């Protein structure tokens, strides 16, 4: 039974996604160009299906690079109580992601956290923290 259900889960992973990838992330961002940036938020564009977080990244030589980081659907976050005041300008975030294939200062926000390791918007997932969407129902 366990094997059957694992198979079901694997197959359901494939089957729930539309027949063609809804968005070719791999066409926009380069798996061979990983980035890890610490930056200060200057602006957030709350648009769909991808929010864009603009950050200023200070390089070791003192220059400031202006990066745009692609996020997911902000409407999902709005339904979890997040709003434009949740990520005000001046907030410092860490972005672990991949750079745009065209070499511009754009990246996808594969994993966005605060400097202390907490995930952006929601606390760490999977631990049952308040607001954790992955919190399993109490037994």
């Amino acid at each position, binding site marked *: 039974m366990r094997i059957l259900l694992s198979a079901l889960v694997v197959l359901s*992973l494939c089957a729930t996604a539309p027949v063609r990838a809804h968005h070719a992330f791999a066409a926009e961002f380069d798996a061979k160009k*990983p980035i890890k940036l610490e930056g200060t938020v200057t602006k957030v564009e709350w648009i769909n299906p991808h929010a*864009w977080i603009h950050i200023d990244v200070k390089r070791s030589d003192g220059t400031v690079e202006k990066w745009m980081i692609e996020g997911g659907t*902000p*409407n999902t976050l709005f339904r979890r109580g997040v709003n434009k005041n949740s990520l005000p300008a001046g907030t410092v975030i860490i972005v672990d992601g991949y750079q745009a294939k065209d070499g511009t200062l754009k990246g*996808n926000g594969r994993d966005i956290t605060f400097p202390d390791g907490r995930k952006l918007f929601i606390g760490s997932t999977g631990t049952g923290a308040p607001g954790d969407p992955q919190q399993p129902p109490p037994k």
Partner: protein
Amino acid sequence: MAIFEKRPSRALASAVVLAALATATIAGQSRPSGTRAMPRTPWGDPDLQGVWSIATITPFERPGALAGKQVLTEEEAAELEKTNLTTNNQDRRDGAGTDADVARAYNDFWWDRGTKVASTRQTSLVVDPPDGRVPGLTPEGQQRAAARAARGYDSWEDRSLWERCITRGLPMIPGPYNNNYQILQTPGYVVILHEMIHDARIIPLGGQPHVGQNIRQWFGDSRGRWEGETLVVDTTNFSEKANYRGSTDRLHLIERFTRVNADTVKYEFTIDDPTTFTRKWTASIPMSHTDEQIYEYACHEGNYGMVNLLSGARVQEKAADGK
């Protein structure tokens, strides 16, 4: 009651009627418990109003491992929901540095894939044919599918309607986010607001004929009618560009909406397109009531993704040409 002892004044009678209707209206718009009668609008139509989510982890087609099985047991459903939390969690970073990791795209908090199977515990959303799989394509349909698969990144026309921010179209299918729809009703219209990509689908109920054959639309042309408790929506006049799983302008879509209890509307759609599919087929998707609301979905207004896709492809071509 005393007021009926003598001929009631017109004003008093109106007040009584108004009060009764007001109560009925309030009852009609509240969420009654499952044991009460189905809610009705003040003019007597079944009430489908509210915000509904179609997020579900039930797969669209029945996986091969479950061939012949129409329904999961309660234990199997619970097990699936539990395993899904880890396997579908987008925070997993196995395969960092691969296209697969890039494709998972973002942290789990951005997604809304659903955490539950359909309340019916059906093993697939496709319910007809009985094997729970979309029927095969006609030879024509296969040719068109092959041509589509061969397209790359030369132009925006090679990309999906979603990447182009044109529309998600019909029918309504669960996806990884924005699974929310709002239904509003008046005597002459049922309106379904699609959050993604901000479409207000207005369905007339007055028996008007379909528009002329030369008018083709992304959402086709819909006409609705009540059959008992079910809203039946008939849609024709699709543009050939609407392309649902390869469908052409011959697509005839029939949808049925039935409120089965306070928290659920059963949504069933039948695809009838003999130029694409070898037979008609039907899917059944439960819509679950939610207290959330629809938000603006500005897509085209900030479609950096399209710019990135195309410029990324051009840069790669240049590099490949060794320039």
